């Protein structure tokens, strides 16, 4: 079991499958003492918490005691597949995966680790945003949109045409430091598994839509709020909302958001570069 320094936190991750980690997580290795612990246990059956049911949704049941919260994921027959046991201070997670009743276990483990990591990050004041982050002139630009719209394709175009680095292809994290918004990467970087252990100042967030021509548009505040709420992690605790809103306010106040309606060919990369050059000159 090894410890990784991610977003400035030393996190021990005990993963059982290296499919999504190899070549992706090594850049984060540290010899520092872990402060957070994520353990995976492969089991043949899930021992349900012997506690009163706290809440229930279609696929999940929730339990808690003084120290831990428990979430059990079920299949359609209500058979338990996975149990996540979380210490209430977020510092220790035990993930029990039923290895007989679900597949592929490597993907499931990685997805749950990502979810757990994002939970820790939000608790520490980070805002994960569903986007593909690339560098341009020493800043990070985030292309955000629902899956399938073309975030990765456009990031790849910027890499191919202009030598940009893709620093995270799924969920980079935002944090305000000294009144400036920074973009942090993590090993959790989506199916393309492109990420670097880096921190860059944010250039802007580009919300992407497919179109018949390349066009940029400044969003109204209401539109910007809708895009941000749709594409950022929504906290489930009142106090965590405050930080999330501070980041959103700053993004809107600093004009860090634009809508890009574009075609699916190389011209979209060329037009984006021209826009970023103009945008940087304006600043």
């Amino acid at each position, binding site marked *: 079991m090894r410890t990784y320094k991610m977003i400035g936190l030393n996190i021990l991750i005990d993963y059982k499958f290296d499919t999504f980690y190899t070549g992706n997580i090594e850049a984060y290795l540290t010899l520092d003492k872990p402060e957070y612990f994520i353990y995976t246990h492969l089991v043949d059956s899930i021992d349900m918490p012997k506690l009163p049911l706290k809440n229930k949704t279609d696929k999940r049941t*929730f339990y808690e005691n003084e120290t831990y919260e428990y979430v059990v994921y079920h299949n359609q027959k209500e058979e338990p597949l996975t149990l996540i046991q979380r210490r209430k201070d977020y510092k220790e997670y035990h993930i029990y995966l039923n290895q007989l009743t679900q597949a592929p276990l490597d993907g499931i483990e990685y997805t749950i680790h990502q979810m757990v990591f994002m939970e820790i990050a939000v608790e520490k004041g980070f805002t994960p945003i569903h986007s593909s982050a690339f560098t341009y002139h020493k800043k990070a630009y985030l292309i955000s949109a629902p899956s399938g719209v073309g975030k990765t394709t456009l990031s790849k175009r910027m890499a191919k045409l202009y030598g940009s680095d893709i620093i995270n292809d799924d969920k980079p994290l935002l944090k305000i430091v000294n009144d400036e918004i920074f973009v942090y990467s993590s090993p959790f970087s989506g199916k393309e598994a492109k990420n670097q252990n880096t921190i860059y100042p944010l250039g802007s967030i580009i919300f992407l839509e497919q179109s018949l021509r390349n066009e940029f548009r400044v969003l109204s505040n209401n539109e910007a709020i*809708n895009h941000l709420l749709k594409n950022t992690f929504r906290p*489930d605790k009142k106090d965590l909302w405050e930080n999330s809103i501070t980041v959103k306010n700053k993004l809107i106040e600093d004009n860090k958001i634009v809508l890009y309606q574009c075609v699916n060919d190389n011209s979209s990369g060329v037009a984006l570069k021209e826009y970023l050059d103009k945008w940087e000159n304006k600043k």
Partner: protein
Amino acid sequence: MKIKEGFIVKEIAGKNVVVTTGDEALNFNMIMHLNSSAKLLFETLKDGSTEEQLIQLLMDTYDVDLEVATRDVRGFIQVLTDKNIL
């Protein structure tokens, strides 16, 4: 009538938006904006209120007549009911 536990109003970039906390965060996936009168009604409904009280509140605060206040309150209550917030 009362707003369900877990729904709160937050101001983002000068706009009022309903967000969720706790168990409701698991189930509610919509985005709801409120203008100033809707925010007043929402905040009043957090502590519980009747339709008549809300109508009176709108008439007192915004100097609107009974017909307009009644239409607005009923419309807003319908929206909250449809979204399972009330």
